């Protein structure tokens, strides 16, 4: 049990019965981890438990410069600009011992360990040769060295049997357009505004990757914007305008931008989106919702939430960017938000880096204008970037639990504030306002005139969606967005981990986001299931989902999935050491477990060995002696003679 630095130093330098497993809480972890990393000989593992009452000031296992190997030509991270100032880099380092995490819901396990520890291990000076309370952690990874070695080992075998050691990371990207983009109309070459966000997060621990400020707020903002925009511009108006909006959610961004690298690579070879591919020329503007949410907790007591729009231009600012920023700024003001422009070639970590790296010709010339929306200027405001603690608490979110009516109408933000259900200071309201501003801006970009209607994003919708991603998968929205036929047991009452996972197995994040986009932006058709399956209007997909009243609804949507597997694994002659694309793979691993027991001091064993040897020798000798001298010792009793000898032979 490590409660301060001196405990850690004792364990590393002065302990006598090592190696030990250190039981550390999240408050102390930042201080002691470096001590353990420097001198790991006495460290058998770490059991990290969440301190439920207090949070550390910062906690981030990501490096100080996330994904720095996959940045565009000018994505420096050094000197004054260190994005993730508090990053320990543990995610990218070789940790010589296992680290297990116990969330606060399992704190009773720590109580048991403390009891055992206090009974046996308190005397720190005399631990050798005494029974000790012990903790065993088991985690075994099959893969070794690096991706190149492990893929080679997986692919070939002298015996002809390939044993899989590791799988490439990957999953699915989700995209959805405001107007359908069927193949036939591709020749019209409608320009698109690309609005993107990432949907995955990471942490050191399996199954815990909440990513609230790292990913979820951006993801929710994007889906809310898409939902609002689809209400503002009816589908039937599509022929009136020559611009379209393509909403895209990238997966695997935590691991060197897997999803966006793939999309940028596919755009460069003209195969994305699969139905009617776009080229970099078709992209009128690329707006990325970067890391949002980190500063929500800082501003939780007032209605402010300053946002920053990074644009990677120092001179020759493309007109689209100036125009967008001006419009966005004015709509933000009318929604009580502020947005400041940051013109800097040095972009914070975001999916834009993939486009700047792979489509560098288009991005550098300004042919593909880019804007990044974040809520930090310079270093991150998110102190828990990519960590297990980046959960709902880190963005100060509290759920309101307002029922959704059967027609899927959400209560508007203004109503919620005027009737006192929500306050201006809350995360939901702020996110809804950003989504409103963005939707209105996009409206003006497409229609060409300022928006005068009264449709805005609902904080009620944001509240529900944040609940789905941060608190529980068993939420109203995801139930409504599930397949109608899905008879499976409802998902767990906990947030889905946002770790991208391996490409061979899909994770829920992409599926949830895709279905939510379909449900919230698609057209709800009142037809039954068989009719729904038969419709085949080009440019649309049809999903039969549960719907708001759970009776089944046919959704006509432009939403679709595309592979988010790094180009490194699909490019035929790719040199894996070139560091051109992300080559992360995940090792195949055995199930993790931990157990507590008391370790024998060995006294019992020594006593038993001595006594056993003594008894054996004594018995052997006695038996031998008695047998040898049986004639002298045993006088055959007369009474016995013939007593049971019925027959003599």
């Amino acid at each position, binding site marked *: 049990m490590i409660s301060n630095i001196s405990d850690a130093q004792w364990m590393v330098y002065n302990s006598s019965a090592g190696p030990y497993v250190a039981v550390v809480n999240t408050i102390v972890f930042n201080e002691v981890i470096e001590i353990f990393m420097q001198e790991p000989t006495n460290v058998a593992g770490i059991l990290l438990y969440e301190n439920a009452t207090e949070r550390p000031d910062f906690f981030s296992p990501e490096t100080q410069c996330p994904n720095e190997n996959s940045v565009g030509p000018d994505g420096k991270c050094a000197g004054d600009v260190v994005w993730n100032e508090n990053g320990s880099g543990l995610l990218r380092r070789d940790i010589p011992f296992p680290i297990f995490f116990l969330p606060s819901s399992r704190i009773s396990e720590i109580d048991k360990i403390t009891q055992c520890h206090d009974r046996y291990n308190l005397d720190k000076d005399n631990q050798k040769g005494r029974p000790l309370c012990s903790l065993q952690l088991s985690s075994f990874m099959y893969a070794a060295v690096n991706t190149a070695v492990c893929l080679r080992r997986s692919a070939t075998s002298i015996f002809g049997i390939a044993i899989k050691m590791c799988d490439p990371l990957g999953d699915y990207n989700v995209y959805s357009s405001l107007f359908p983009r069927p193949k036939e109309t591709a020749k019209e070459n409608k320009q698109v505004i690309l609005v993107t966000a990432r949907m995955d997060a990471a942490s050191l621990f399996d199954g815990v990757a909440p990513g609230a400020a790292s990913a979820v707020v951006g993801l929710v903002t994007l889906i809310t914007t898409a939902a609002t925009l689809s209400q503002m511009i009816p589908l039937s108006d599509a022929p009136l305008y020559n611009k379209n909006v393509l909403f895209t959610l990238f997966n695997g961004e935590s691991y060197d931008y897997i999803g966006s690298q793939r999309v940028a690579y596919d755009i460069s070879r003209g195969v994305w989106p699969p139905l009617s591919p776009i080229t970099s020329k078709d992209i009128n503007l690329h707006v990325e919702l970067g890391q949002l949410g980190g500063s929500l907790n800082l501003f939780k007591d007032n209605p402010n939430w300053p946002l920053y729009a990074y644009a990677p231009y120092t001179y020759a600012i493309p007109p689209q960017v100036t125009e967008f920023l001006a419009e966005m700024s004015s709509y933000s003001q009318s929604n009580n938000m502020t947005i400041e422009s940051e013109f800097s070639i040095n972009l914070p970590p975001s999916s834009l880096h993939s486009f700047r790296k792979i489509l560098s010709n288009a991005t550098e010339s300004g042919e593909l204008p880019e804007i990044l929306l974040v809520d930090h200027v310079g270093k991150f405001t998110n102190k828990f970037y990519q960590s297990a603690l980046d959960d709902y608490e880190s963005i100060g979110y509290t759920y309101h639990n307002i029922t959704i009516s059967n027609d899927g109408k959400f209560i508007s933000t203004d109503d919620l504030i005027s009737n006192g259900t929500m306050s201006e200071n809350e995360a939901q309201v702020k996110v809804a306002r950003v989504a409103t501003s963005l939707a209105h801006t996009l409206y003006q970009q497409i229609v060409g005139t300022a928006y005068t209607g009264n449709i805005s994003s609902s904080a009620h919708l944001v509240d529900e969606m944040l609940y789905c991603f941060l608190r529980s998968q068993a939420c109203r929205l995801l139930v409504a967005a599930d397949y109608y036929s899905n008879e499976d047991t409802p998902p767990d009452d906990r947030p889905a981990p946002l770790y991208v996972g391996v490409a061979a197995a899909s994770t829920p994040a992409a599926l949830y986001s895709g279905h939510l986009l379909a449900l919230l932006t698609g057209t709800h058709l009142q037809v039954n299931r068989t009719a729904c399956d038969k419709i085949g209007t080009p440019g649309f997909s049809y999903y039969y989902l549960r719907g708001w009243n759970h009776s089944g609804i046919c959704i006509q949507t432009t939403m679709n999935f595309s592979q988010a597997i790094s180009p490194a694994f699909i490019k035929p002659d790719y040199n894996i050491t070139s560091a051109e694309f992300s080559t992360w793979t995940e090792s195949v691993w055995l199930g993790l477990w931990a*157990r507590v027991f008391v370790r024998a001091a060995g006294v019992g*064993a020594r006593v038993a060995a001595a006594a056993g040897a003594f008894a054996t020798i004594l018995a052997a000798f006695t038996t031998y002696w008695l047998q040898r001298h049986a004639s002298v010792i045993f006088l055959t009793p007369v009474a016995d003679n013939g007593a*049971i*000898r019925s027959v003599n032979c």
Partner: protein
Amino acid sequence: MTAAEFFSCSLLAFGAPLAMFALTIANDPVRIIIMIAAAFFWLLSFLLSSMIWYAVVPLRSYLAFGMVFAILIQETFRFGVYLLLKRTESGLKEISENHEIGSNKAEIAYVSGFGFGAMSGAFAIINVLADSVGPGTLGLRHGSEYFFVTSASMTLCMTLLNTFWSVIFFNGVDNKSYLKILWVVGSHLVVSGLSLLNRKELYAATIIPSYIILVITLYIAFKCAGGSSKGFLQTFRART
């Protein structure tokens, strides 16, 4: 550490019986047959006891109840072994190369008792030994580290006691000396009763009296087998 515990406890529990087996029984096939038969009888007695334990549902959690029945059934089966061996003695002699077998009643008693004891010892310790492999030992909630050693030494004690009890018992039946039979059943109950104290971790209170009873039983068995202390001492004198 726990592997050491496993091996040393095995040595303690089975070392002495193994030495006795190697020196006295292993060289004669008929003795082995008798030993196995006795071991089988012990198993039967155990099956019966466990059936009774299983049948009487309300008393399942009371160890003492099952234990008393188990002891009585074991002693009944010991008598069964006696009857069996008495009937088959001539047959055994036919097939045996050693035609002297059975000429000393104590010899058969010793061999069958050894079979009885070996099987009961094996049953008593196997589960404990399997757990002793580790990685943990006792003491997380309660229990002491010495549990394995005491279990092993109690097993050794019971194995040897069973051997000597058979010698005394057979002799007692032969001579209609009910006092000897009473000693066997009585000391069996006492020793087993003492082992109930293991629950309270009073290991010394179990082991010391048990070994005292073992020594007494050994002496009685020695006498029953016709041994004389005088002759025993003489062997040493002859040497020196």
